[in-house]
Structure formats: C-alpha cells, structure tokens
C-alpha cells in the first residue's frame, strides 16, 4: 500500500461520511420542518361561528373555549348564550366580526359576500354546507384539525359512530314501518305539511332508526305534500318533529284530531302518530345520535 493509496482511501471515506452527514441533516431538517408545520399550523384561537350546528360541533370537539362569538340563532350548548351575537345567515354583522379579531370565521356556503370580505380582511374562513349524516362526522374531524383538537374530535366522532351502530344493531331484523317524517305543519290543521324526502340527514336518521321513508323516492330534503299524496302513500307511522313539546290534554287532542281526518291512513287507524319534540332533532350537529336513538325508541318501543 502506497501512501497515496491511503490518502485516496481516507478521502473516499471522508466523502462517504459527508454524504451520510448530509442525509442525516436533511432527514432531521424534514422532521423539524414537519413538526414545525404540525406545531405551528394555524390553530384557531378566536373562532366566530355563524352556523348553530357547527357551534355545537366546536363544543363537542373541545374547542368551546376558543369560540368568541356566535350567530343570533345559537342556543346550544347553554354556554353560548353568554357570548356576543354577530348576526346570522342573511344579516352577518361584518363590522362586529372584524372588530372581534377572529382567526377563524365559520360561514355557511351561501354567504359568499361575507367570505369575500373575510378574505379581504385576511381572516381565514371555514365554509360549510349541510349535507348528509356522514358530512356531520367529516365536518367535526375537519374542525378538530383547524382548532387543534384532533384527538378529541376523533373521539367524539367515534362515540357518535358507535352509538349509531348500536341503534342499527338494535333495530336490525325488525320490521321497518313505512313512515311519514313530518317536520313542519300549520298547527292544528293539515295545511302546509313539509316532510323529509329521500335525501339529507333527516332521511338518513330515519333509516338508521329502523323506519322506511314513504317519500324516499323524491330526491329532495324537504317536500311539501298534499293530503291526497299522504292518503295515497298510506304511511304506517306518522313521526312528527316539533320544536316545542305539545302540552298533554286539549292541545295534544287537537293535534291528533287534525290527523284523524285522514282516517284511512294506517298510522291514523292504528294510532301510530308519534311526536318527537325539541330543537335538537332538526339540527345536523353532534346531538344527532341522541335524536336517532329517540326516533328508534319511538318506532320500535
């Protein structure tokens, strides 16, 4: 071995070392960069929600303390009643929203003007539109990421999923009654009856709760139906969602009496007129599993 050879060898060894060094530093850089991205990903700390369903989701994923203002229609969870109100779907108060210095504004899909204004003000916005049941869960996970509560969001979603699965298992194999799902009607009459068609979270809730929607063939979330179509479709159960509890006694008798005009409908004949009351049922939010459970209990007592 000549001295020259040794130098050459040691040189190549050196290059190898420096290659390794480069690789190691690159990998560590990537790791550091990635952890920076994760750590400093803009976690919203001052959130304004203009969609009541999403306010509920924020609280469900543990981002409640980060919410600084809500819409004028928010009423759940009770904590929101103490928060400032900044308008709603058609009348968002842009000035107040900006003055509250939010770092995330939750808007509804149709609020394009507000979204444009938020963009101009360099305030990030989260754009949402009502979808089916799965959309609720997806949105909760997305909110978890945006607010830095990924694990809690996953947990909350898993809890809802397992409760829905339990309801599904409970009603599996049971006869599915043909159900008319009414969510709006002129009080004490059979006028302006709005029911769930075969799309949207109400329809999906009914299906999970073990009912068959008599208007599932209509690809709409909300359908105004005439007394004639109700008579023709002959539902076995009429399930009515009401914002407020109907007091027992005369008011309840009046409500039942208005349906009794459709005497040939099996639901009327067999007294299968069921009412579920409370605002929660018609909110596509994290309380959906409770509502499905209530529906299932009503349909399959």
């Amino acid at each position, binding site marked *: 071995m000549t001295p020259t050879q040794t130098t050459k060898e040691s040189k190549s060894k050196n290059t190898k070392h420096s290659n390794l060094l480069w690789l190691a530093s690159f990998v560590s850089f990537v790791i550091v960069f990635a952890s920076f991205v994760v750590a400093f990903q803009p976690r919203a700390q001052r959130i304004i929600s203009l969609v009541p369903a999403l306010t509920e989701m924020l609280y469900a994923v543990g981002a409640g303390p980060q919410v600084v203002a809500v819409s004028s*229609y928010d009423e759940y969870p009770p904590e929101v009643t103490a928060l400032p109100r900044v308008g709603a779907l058609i009348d968002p108060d842009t000035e107040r929203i900006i003055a509250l210095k939010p770092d995330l504004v939750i808007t509804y899909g149709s609020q394009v003007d507000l979204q444009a204004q938020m963009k101009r003000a360099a305030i990030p916005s989260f754009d949402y539109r009502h979808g089916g049941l799965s959309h609720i869960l997806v949105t909760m996970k997305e909110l978890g990421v945006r607010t830095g509560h990924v694990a809690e969001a996953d947990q909350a979603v898993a809890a809802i999923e397992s409760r829905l699965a339990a309801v599904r298992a409970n009603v599996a194999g049971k006869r599915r009654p043909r159900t008319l799902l009414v969510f*709006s009607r*002129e009080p004490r009459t059979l006028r302006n009856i709005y029911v769930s068609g075969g799309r949207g979270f109400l329809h999906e809730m009914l299906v999970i709760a073990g009912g068959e929607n008599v208007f599932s063939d209509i690809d709409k979330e909300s359908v105004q139906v005439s007394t*004639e179509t109700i*008579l023709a479709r002959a539902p076995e159960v009429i399930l009515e969602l009401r914002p407020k509890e109907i007091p027992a006694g005369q008011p309840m008798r009046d409500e039942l009496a*208005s349906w009794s*005009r459709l005497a040939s409908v099996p639901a009327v004949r067999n007294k299968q007129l069921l009412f579920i009351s409370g605002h929660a049922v018609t909110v596509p939010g994290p309380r959906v599993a409770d509502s499905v459970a209530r529906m299932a209990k009503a349909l399959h007592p």
Partner: protein
Amino acid sequence: MNIRLRIVTVVTLFAIGTVAVVLWAPTVGSTSISLAKAFDRSIPWEENVDAQIFFVARLPRVLSGALVGATLAAAGVVLQAMLRNPLATPFTLGVSAGGALGAMLAIAFGLEVGMMGVSSIPIASFAGSLVAIGIVYWLASSQKRGLSTNVLLLAGVTLNSFFSALILFVQYLSDFTESFRTIRWLMGDLDVGSYSPLIAALPFVVAAFAVFAILPRTLNVLTLGDDVAAARGVEVVRTQRLAFLSASLATGAAVSLGGPIGFIGIIVPHLVRLMVGSDHRIVLPAAALFGAAFTVLCDLGARTIMAPLELPVGIITALIGGPFFLWLLVKKS
C-alpha cells in the same frame, strides 16, 4: 236580442261550463281513484281510501278554488267599475296586504288561537284585511263629499306598500323556517285539508255576493262618471260605499282561505268583457263563474303537473295571467 234573454243565455252557458269543471276536477289528481269505490257506501269509511281522497283531499280543495276564484274575479269587476280604472284588482286597495300582514304575524309569532277547526293563520289574515279596509275607508270618507275614488286608490296603493314593508320587517325578524312559510303563504295554497275554513269564509262571501247582485245596473251608469250617474238619479256615494265594502270583505275572506292568489282578479274580468261585452249585468255573474272555473283548473295543474310535488297555485295563475295580460294590453292599444 232582448237583454234579459241575453243575460239568461250567457250566464247559463257560463254556469254549465263552470259546473262541468267543478264536477270533473275532483275526479282527477296525482293518484287514480275509482269513483264507483269512492261512492260505495258499503265500504267502511276508514277503509275506503278512494272515498277519502275524493271527499277529504280533493273536494274541499276544488270547492275552495271555486269560491276564491269567483270572489276575486267578481271583486275585480266591481272595483274596476267603481274606480273606473282597468288596472284595479281586488288587491289594489290594500286588503290583501293587510291580510298578508295578519298571516305573517300569526306565522312569525306562532299564534295558536284556533276557532271551530280554523287555525290562527286564516283568522289573523281576515283580521288584517278588516284593519286595512277600515283604514282605507276612513281615509277616503273623511272628505266632505262622500267617498273619493282618487283618495281610495292612493290610500290603497300607499297602504299596500306600507304593509309590504311591515311584512318584510316581520319576515326579517323571524327565523328561516318561518320566513319560508310566510313566503309560501304569499304564493297561495288551496289544499285546505278540511271543510271548516271553507265554511268559515262562506258567510262573508255570500253576503258580498248578495250586495253584488244589486250593483250591476248602477255600476253601468257609474262607469260613465260620477256626475252623469248622479244626474241619472244614482246615489253615487252609497253605491261606492257598498261596492267597496262588499268587494273588500269578500276579498279578505278569499285571501284568508287561499292566500293572495294573483292575476285572477284582473285577467278574468278583462277576458270576460272581451267575450260578453261590458254590460255589468252579464259581466259580473259571468266573471264570477269564469273565475271559479279558471282557478279550479289552475289548481288542478298545481296538484298534478309536478306530482307528487305541489306547485304553488299563485305561480300558475301568474304564469298564465302575466303574458296573457300583456297580450291584452298590446292588442287593446
């Protein structure tokens, strides 16, 4: 031709047509039913779906269509003659806007005072109409010389826009589902669901038609001008008062039953005048009959065109009425 014979012939022909439409309309719909089964008394009521579709779903709907159509068309004739304005409608004098405001308030504040099977919304609507009638009548009669048609028109139009602003205000304050319900109410809906609202509206309409029956001869003279009419011995003020009050009362009742269904009160009178001339002894009954048939047919469209979905009847009357009225305007000029 002897005028009396002409009246009888024309009105009989219109009556035959209208009766035919009213009898035929309940036999068709989004579901096909067997008439034999519907009228079979041996099948228990609870089990006879066809009978229920006929008697519970379709018949009250057809009858309220006929009642609303006849009322709005006749009120249109009376008001156009009284105001000597071809653009006058039953809704020009603020009655429907008052009715609409009443209904909006009942929907937005969730009023739940019903009477005799009639819900709060028609009751509030009728009350709103009465308030509007009262205000317009008070304004128009506060002048020295009886009822001023100009003041009537101006007061009515102003009240219309004032009430419309209040309606928008109420809608703005109410939440989305209520806003939607109020907007839907404005499109008109004849699916009344029972006979009670029909029976509740009937006395007012019958009373108004009793007044309409004595009006035609004086309306004929009145169209020539107040002074000419007065010279011919017509008690102008009394006639105007009767005409305004009866037409408005009937309109209020019709609006409370089916909502403010547009265009019937303006196109039917003009169409009938084109067919039978301008003698109110013929125009008034013919327009009432034609209005009934027209509305029943439009509502037939409303419940079948998109079945099982409902189409608001006001959209159909406006879609037919609007272009037709423009054609009429162009043709006349």
